[in-house]
């Protein structure tokens, strides 16, 4: 806590008067004190109050003396070396920020603002200085893959249901095309990864993604959540023709009448995740389009010759 103290009225070296006023009385809170009709001087280091009759002043330091010293020592490194050190220091601070940000998600959320402004300043620098064309395009593509400009956040929507409703819409909007490209079905885990990648920094928790996907059906969105009997959850195009999927699977199986197919074979052939390939085969089995063969070689599926041949 700062207090008034008696000190020398004369200015020390480097001290300069900034402002001064006459006939000033000091108060202790609301109470008047005996220190009245004085001369107040504000310097770059102190605030001084002096009665005309006295030679010494009452003073309060406005700035810690040692910081003045530090700024003085900094001045020594001017020139190119100094600038270089300055830049290096800034870089160190930035890289420290980055590594601290990735320590855990909590920190990341806390530092999100700094990170955003950092990325902005980088992009501004790129605009100002002509960095090589390759670097610029690469950086642009990074920024573009961050995707959603204005992610739905919990803070923006008060109630949890409102938040999930908006989130469901956002997921459907962002992922309709990728899901269509993947053949109409995408594993929930992949949906989680993709939406978080698209949002960049406003990360979602797995629970929120599941909640949002659960709501899709009620909102009449182009995507909806589907749970297989095995418990595997996928997001698929609403109204995806299950019969067609089964028929497609049966068609692929028919080409392997002799040796059958494992889930891995189907995954490779159709370019779908292993888990999804397995679900497709099981679904085909439920529709009597495939039959299983359990042996030491693992679980394989064959076309249902029991029906087609007899």
């Amino acid at each position, binding site marked *: 806590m700062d207090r008034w103290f008696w000190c020398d009225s004369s200015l020390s070296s480097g001290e300069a008067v900034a402002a001064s006023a006459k006939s000033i009385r000091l108060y202790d809170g609301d109470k008047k004190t005996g220190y009245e009709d004085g001369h107040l001087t504000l310097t770059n280091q102190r605030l001084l109050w002096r009665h005309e009759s006295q030679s010494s002043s009452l003073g309060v330091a406005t700035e810690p003396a040692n910081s003045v010293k530090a700024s003085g020592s900094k001045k020594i490194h001017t020139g190119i070396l100094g600038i270089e050190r300055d830049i290096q220091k800034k870089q160190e601070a930035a890289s420290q920020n980055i590594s601290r940000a990735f320590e855990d998600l909590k920190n990341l959320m806390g530092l999100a603002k700094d990170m955003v402004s950092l990325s902005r300043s980088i992009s501004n620098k790129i605009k100002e200085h002509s960095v090589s064309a390759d670097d610029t395009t690469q950086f642009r593509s990074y920024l573009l893959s961050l995707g959603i400009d204005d992610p739905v956040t919990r803070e923006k929507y008060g109630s949890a249901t409102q938040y999930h409703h908006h989130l469901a819409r956002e997921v459907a909007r962002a992922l309709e095309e990728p899901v269509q490209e993947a053949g109409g079905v995408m594993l929930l885990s992949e949906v989680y990864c993709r939406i978080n990648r698209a949002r960049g920094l406003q990360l979602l928790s797995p629970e929120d993604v599941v909640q949002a996907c659960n709501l899709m059906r009620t909102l009449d969105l182009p995507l909806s959540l589907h749970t297989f009997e095995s418990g595997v959850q996928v997001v698929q195009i609403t109204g995806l023709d299950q019969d067609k999927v089964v028929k497609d699977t049966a068609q692929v199986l028919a080409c392997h009448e002799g040796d*059958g197919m494992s889930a891995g074979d189907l995954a490779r052939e159709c370019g779908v995740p292993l888990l999804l390939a397995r679900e497709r085969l099981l679904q085909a*089995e*439920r529709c*009597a389009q495939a*039959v*299983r*063969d*359990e*042996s*030491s070689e693992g679980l*394989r*599926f*064959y076309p*249902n*010759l*029991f*029906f087609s*041949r*007899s």
Partner: protein
Amino acid sequence: MTEFEWPWQYSFPPFFTLQVNADVRKTQLDAWCALVTSWGKQGGVTQIDVTEASDLAVFKNASIHRALPPDGIQVVLEELVRRGNLEWTDKTKRRGYLLWRSAGEWGTQIYKWAQGSSRINTVCTLYELAHGDETADQEFHNLDGDILLKALRTLEASGKAELMDFGDNQGVKFL
């Protein structure tokens, strides 16, 4: 004896895994029952021991490295029992008579033969029926004694025959 002609299912690997889909399993069990009975008929197999069933050629195909697992064999045998093609010898269900014709069908066939060869109201010994020269061209020739007895019992139950005991030999009178 001619080589048994295995059906196509026998070299189809999923045939040796019990199918999960109920409809498919039904078709699969149909095929199994048909295979076991026709195989038994061809090879003259009259009894199946549950503990040794997994060694039977019908339940494994070495050329495709597949064998019906024990619980699968159990299901097939139970299905055969349900269809009347297998009868347990006792309550422990460890052995069963394989009836590629059910006892009732055998009975009808024997009665038809008896009618055709004017044996109504006459008495035959069981040995005569199974091993006599006159039945040599009949399907029930060399039929297992126990199964023959079961067949005749079904006739007795429907009032078409009467079993008689001659001490160490048994006979039957067709009515």
